[in-house]
């Protein structure tokens, strides 16, 4: 079966700096893929390339079989590619409900319908009690959930989650994992996440891709990947790996 998202030979250079080099992977319908790697490995750049905020220097991105290299971010979103940002940015002047409604309008022109869809999503993420409060009143964990809710409102087939657990305390991480587990209930068949929090990676992912210095150094199930010497070296340094 053709993968939902397919990335081939993705390369991005900024000026003289090569941020991403020859990265290829795919996401199947129904699977959860995690992209991990040390800081500066190019993970967010890959997401920016996939979602359309940068254009690749080389390489091809296919979504649902269509090459989307030339599409603007909003066009990719309308085709079912949702995304959250590492630095969460709720619309500060809008209420929590209104924030999600903006996302819902991707699938409807009616205010009443958007409101209904948004309330449903808020209930899903557990924020419905605060629907009319301003988004700026939320804590970080709340904002992360709002960010996910807003992207979910666009009814994506695949959602790109950029460090969605970063900055959360252990309880909040547990809650986030619980939320992410249920994404399939909303019709989001696939998830690709950039993650630092290993707990999320290990418990949720079907497969893991490891980046270092912009290149892929490993790919496989979570259990396989954590034992690769190259991966250990990337995170902990060469000495440790050679002793392992």
């Amino acid at each position, binding site marked *: 079966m053709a993968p939902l998202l397919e990335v081939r030979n993705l390369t991005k250079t900024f000026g003289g700096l090569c941020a991403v080099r020859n990265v290829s992977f795919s996401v199947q319908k129904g699977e959860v893929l995690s992209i991990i790697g040390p800081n500066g490995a190019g993970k967010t750049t890959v997401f920016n390339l996939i979602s359309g905020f940068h254009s690749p220097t080389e390489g091809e991105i296919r979504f649902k079989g269509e090459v989307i290299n030339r599409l603007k971010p909003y066009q990719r979103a*309308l085709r079912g590619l949702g995304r959250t940002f590492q630095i969460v*940015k709720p619309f500060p002047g809008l209420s929590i409900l209104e924030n999600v409604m903006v996302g819902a309008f991707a699938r409807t022109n009616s205010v009443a319908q958007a409101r209904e869809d948004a309330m449903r999503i808020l209930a899903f993420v557990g924020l419905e009690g605060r629907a009319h*409060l301003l988004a700026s009143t939320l804590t970080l964990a709340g904002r992360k959930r709002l960010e996910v809710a807003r992207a979910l409102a666009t009814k994506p087939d695949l959602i790109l989650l950029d460090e969605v657990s970063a900055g959360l305390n252990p309880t909040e991480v547990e809650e986030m994992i619980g939320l992410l587990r249920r994404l399939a209930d909303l019709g989001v068949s696939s998830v690709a996440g950039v993650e630092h929090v290993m707990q999320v990676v290990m418990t949720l992912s079907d497969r893991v891709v490891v980046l270092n210095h912009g290149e892929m150094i490993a790919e496989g199930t979570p259990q396989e990947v954590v034992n690769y010497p190259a991966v250990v070296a990337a995170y902990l340094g060469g000495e440790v790996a050679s002793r392992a």
Partner: protein
Amino acid sequence: MSRVREIVPPLLLAVIVLSVPLFLKNPYWLNVLILVLVWTALGSAWNIVGGYAGQLSLGHSAFFGLGAYTLAITATHLGWNPWLGIALGMVLAVPLSLFIGSITFRLRGPYFVLGTLAIAEVLRLVALAWRSVTNGAVGIMVPFLFQGVSRAPYYWFIAVVAIVAVGITWWIERHKVGYYLTAIREDQETAESIGINTTGYKNLALVISAVLAAATGAFYASYLSYIEPDIVLSEPVSLQMAIVAIIGGRGTVFGPAVGATLLVFASELFRAQFKQAHLLIYGLLLMAAILFLPGGVLGTLQQRLKARRAARAALTGSTFGVRKEAS
């Protein structure tokens, strides 16, 4: 539905506004109210782009001037019926705004603002230099739209324009367009990522804004019966359009109306003391607004009400008890 109840006060207000000339005959006061309506229309036009979409344009005089000059030129050089001239001005505002948008919307942050200023200035200079068409600094006499001594017809014309402008704003705020423009204002990048064609919507806002400004410009030209580049294409016009909306409340439906009323009355008040000091006062009020009341009069009020209502709803646990979701 509560939507019907919601529309009654504004409709009532519109009726009251329209009926004023039936009772008020004093030409001085009619003139003042006409000015209030002119700046309500202009402020509302600007508000769609500058308030809701958050694009701080300081070059809207381009559209105001386009409307004025289209009427003046077609009426005097081509002998057209002035109503046709007004219509043409509104039509031409579309390609002009799309052109300006195609350039300025590519500029980020402060450069967008400076870009709009630059383009408006170029238009003013062109109008000054293109004497064969515009008579340059000498200006053009504009024929009367209505015969007779009474200002009432002029009042009604501009009242309709202002009501339409405010009405369009009212509609935008309550429909998808309004939500999208607000999202663009708050965070354009995020807006793109959730499926909003930001370029398309910004251009849409600009086109609507431009057409309204052009209509008002044509009216103003006829009302003044004389125009020249420094009256209708000058920077103070652009600035006042923005100031009216900012002081009254950017991103609110009635903000520009409130701002227009405040500013016109303030300038009338001080006219006795200093002749041309209204711009000085506007400058001071603008600074005061930015420093102390950035949401403007209505904007600040609305934000406080919204927060209070939301807190109350959260306390009582009801989510559907809150009636109007104002952006």
